[in-house]
């Protein structure tokens, strides 16, 4: 062993670490571990919770059973991705050589950079919502399948409704909510992300309801864990007190499990309270003309699903028929509409509506990486063959 060398402090050594292949290998290894554990965790947590906890996070925590501790055990997807990105960029910055021999490597790593950036942007900015349209129905909005909102609807004018929508995260915070367009405040007493509702007659020994008015008085509510299954929806519920200038008007139980609107009148205006999936209004509307579900002869194996819709956009003067089918979506004004499911005896279509500003990046990245790999490996291969045949 040679004697220890005491290196003076320099900027070079952190840069050397950041750009080292060793760091690349460590990051990739941790990435494998993360992906593997994230796959296993899906069995119990469901895909959505795993995405948030493992892949769209900085750190993954472990809580020893029985304690409230949160011990970070693994870097999450965002942290690993960022470190890899920095590693890649510094490695190329430090050792950059534009030679023919390095061309493939540069191309493919640039593709990887694009891919990682694209996924980061997608995670941050993409939005997935759904449209459920019955045959003959026209819909101008899509809904978030896993997020609710409390809509306060002023239905006084028969020609239009005036809606104030309160998103779930505000409801979950609780407390008093005030809106300039409403002559009253809302006080969220309790919010339950997922709840079980039962009629009081079935559970007579339950404590009295917090609700003082509406059907909620006769309903027993219990909070339950959020669903982890892909094909189930949470039923959210909240106790909301409405406070007018002259004092409280009452406390309502609002839930998307209660289909009928609940309302009250104040100052000559009629208001309705409703818990519903969070809506995103569009500048255009879709009418479902027909949903088709083809099967293979003599079987129940689905061959194709397709929705014939009419696209109506007054702003852009569009009024035309479109067919959305499996593997053949509609792209319009930055949104993509995919055939996702069906319901109600093939009379209702479910369209997945996606807005992803980084949609094109993977396509470019894939091209670059493929090209880079082919260039690089064929140089190896030709060199090798030339050597063998000589």
């Amino acid at each position, binding site marked *: 062993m040679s004697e220890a060398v005491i290196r003076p402090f320099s900027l070079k050594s952190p840069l050397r670490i950041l750009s080292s292949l060793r760091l690349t290998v460590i990051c990739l*290894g941790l990435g494998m571990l993360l992906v593997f554990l994230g*796959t296993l965790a899906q069995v119990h947590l469901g*895909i959505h919770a795993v*995405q948030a906890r493992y892949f769209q996070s900085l750190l993954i925590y472990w809580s020893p059973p029985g304690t409230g501790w949160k011990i970070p055990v693994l870097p999450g997807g965002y942290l690993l991705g960022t470190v890899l990105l920095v590693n890649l960029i510094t490695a190329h910055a430090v050792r950059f050589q534009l030679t023919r021999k390095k061309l493939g490597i540069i191309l493919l790593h640039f593709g990887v950079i694009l891919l990682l950036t694209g*996924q980061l942007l997608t995670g941050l900015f993409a939005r997935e919502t759904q449209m459920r349209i019955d045959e003959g129905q026209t819909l101008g909005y899509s809904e978030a399948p896993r997020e609710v909102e409390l809509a306060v609807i002023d239905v006084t004018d028969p020609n239009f409704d005036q809606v104030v929508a309160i998103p779930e995260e505000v409801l979950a915070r609780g407390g008093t909510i005030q809106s300039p367009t409403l002559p009253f405040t809302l006080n969220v007493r309790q919010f339950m992300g997922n709840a079980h509702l039962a009629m009081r007659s079935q559970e007579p020994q339950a404590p009295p309801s917090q609700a003082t008015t509406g059907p909620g008085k006769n309903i027993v509510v219990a909070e339950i864990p959020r669903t982890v299954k892909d094909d189930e929806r949470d039923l959210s519920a909240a106790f909301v007190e409405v406070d007018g200038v002259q004092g409280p008007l009452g406390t309502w139980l609002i839930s998307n499990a209660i289909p009928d609107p609940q309302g009250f009148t104040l100052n000559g205006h009629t208001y309705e309270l409703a818990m519903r999936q969070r809506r995103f209004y569009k500048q255009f509307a879709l009418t479902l003309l027909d949903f088709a579900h083809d099967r293979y002869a003599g079987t129940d194996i689905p061959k194709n699903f397709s929705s014939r819709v009419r696209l109506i956009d007054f702003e852009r003067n569009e009024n035309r028929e479109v067919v959305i089918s499996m593997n053949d*979506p509609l792209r319009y004004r930055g949104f993509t509409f995919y055939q996702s499911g069906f319901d109600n005896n093939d009379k209702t279509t479910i369209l997945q509506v*996606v807005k*992803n500003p980084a949609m094109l990046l*993977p396509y470019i990245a894939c091209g670059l990486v493929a090209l880079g790999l082919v260039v690089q*490996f064929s140089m190896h291969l030709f060199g090798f063959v030339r050597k063998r045949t000589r």
Partner: protein
Amino acid sequence: MKTSRPWILWLVAAATFAYVVAPLFQSDTWGGFEMRKFGRLPVLLNGRIKPLDTVARNSLLIIHGKQTLATDHGTLTPIDWLAEVLMKQDEADLRKVFVIRNSETLTALGLSPEAGKYFSFREFVPHLQELEQQAALAQKVDPQLRSAFQRDIIKLFERLTLYHRLKNSLEVEGTVNFKSQIDDLVKNIRPSPVPMNTGISAEALQSLGFLAETGYFFPIPPFPPNDDPLQWRKMGESLVAFLTEGKLHLAVNSWATMATAFAANDPATFNKTLDNYAAQVQRDLPRRVWKAKVESVFNQLQPFYSAMVIYVLIFILAAGSWLVWPKALGRYAFALLVVTFIVHSGGLITRMYLEGRPPVTNLYSSAVFIGWGAVLLGIFLERFFRNGIGSATAAMIGFITLLIAHHLSMDGDTMEMMRAVLDTNGWLATHVVCVTLGYASTFLAGFLALTYIVRGAFTPSLDRATAQSLTRMVYGIVCFATLFSFVGTILGGIWADQSWGRFWGWDPKENGALLIVLWNAIILHARWGGLVRQRGLMVMAVFGNVVTSWSWFGVNMLGIGLHSYGFMDSAFPWLIAFGASQIAFMMIGLLPTHLWRSQFEKAKSPAPTQVVDVPA
């Protein structure tokens, strides 16, 4: 090439060829009935028009677990057996065709384990009620939580149902003279939109309804003849349609005549009717008949089965060449490998033609294709390095993957229709093919590394030159694997983006593919960074086998995600055993070199003398 004689080479190739085509020369008839011709008649089942022979083979595989049925008087082919089931049910009921391997099932049904594992339908009759009750109990349990017994009893119940439906596909079982029944029907019926008003007896109407309901496959082609699969009819459906429309499809008569002649042991009438009917279908649907014929020849040849057997021989020859007669044995192995590859490819291409699809459409075909890809790469390696390693490794993977495919085929038809989202040849041809080639090459690299470790640690045969050429092979194949798995995985993301708007959803199968990409990238970066050398590369490549087998099979066993193919509990212990064996080989690969039998590394390293290990 003085040690090898060309005529031996030709002899080896010719013998292989003879082995492959031998099944075509089996007898065409059974007791005077032209069974092969009968097996080629096209019928519709599960959305696909296929020869009756395919229906027979898949049904026998599901019920019996084998493609032939041994009896006291020789072996029955699948179509012989099916003919009995369809037309002579009394005798079919006596055949010991149902296999039960689970002793709990036997006990629960009150059957004696001493009686063997094969039972006839007749032997089940007293236990049917019990079986139905047990199956109903098991059905109530969530599929993933069922015990081995519960799964077995449900499977048995499904097999009995299949058998029952087959028996009632052409005629109601026990019918004495089906032909004369139909003649009576034609004579006495006054067609009416309401079947009750046609003058048919309530009993006869009920039995037609039963036939329409229970029948398993659709033997009656469209009339007027056309290519639409939706217009094929079951026997019962055609007869009910006759009541209302007054027109009887000629095919109904032909099938009924054959059934009656077969039951009456009258080969002359049977063969004549069969000839006429086959000629008629040939005129009406020439393309379908041609495909059915191709499929039936394909069934008979079983190219993947013969290839599987020959791969074993190739492995023995190639591995033998490392010990004796390297040139001669190596050449024979290579020649055989090429011939077998042609057989393997022939099977693959025939499947693609029959399905009208790219090569990989389900788990079964992925196994066939992984083997094919690995053998193709192995041939290239052997062509360059000529040391038997390419041949031996390729043959080994070819054998294992085809064996896996053979077991996967036990579930029935391997050419299923593609569910809506998968019904796109473009993506099947690009994403799926790329990812599967990625699997194939990662496996190849892993098995090459196994060769290195096994030869190095257990035999003295690994010299420096071989070790170096193995290193080059593994490195090259890992590069190849990286390319295909990366591109394939991203193409999968793009497909997902195209069909449900999500480039990457962290679905288990996607994650599995990503693991392979990451592992291959790790190997390459570790090598470039000098973190591993020759043996390290080999050990890492072996772990590639673990990663790939997880991604190929393991994630399917999680039973979740958009890609899951169903629960394959029986394969699970095998997967674990495979993983454990690979880890064991990695451990051996990490042993200090002085424990290895081959001492090639010593010569290479210019190590100072004092480092040489103490002689034991």
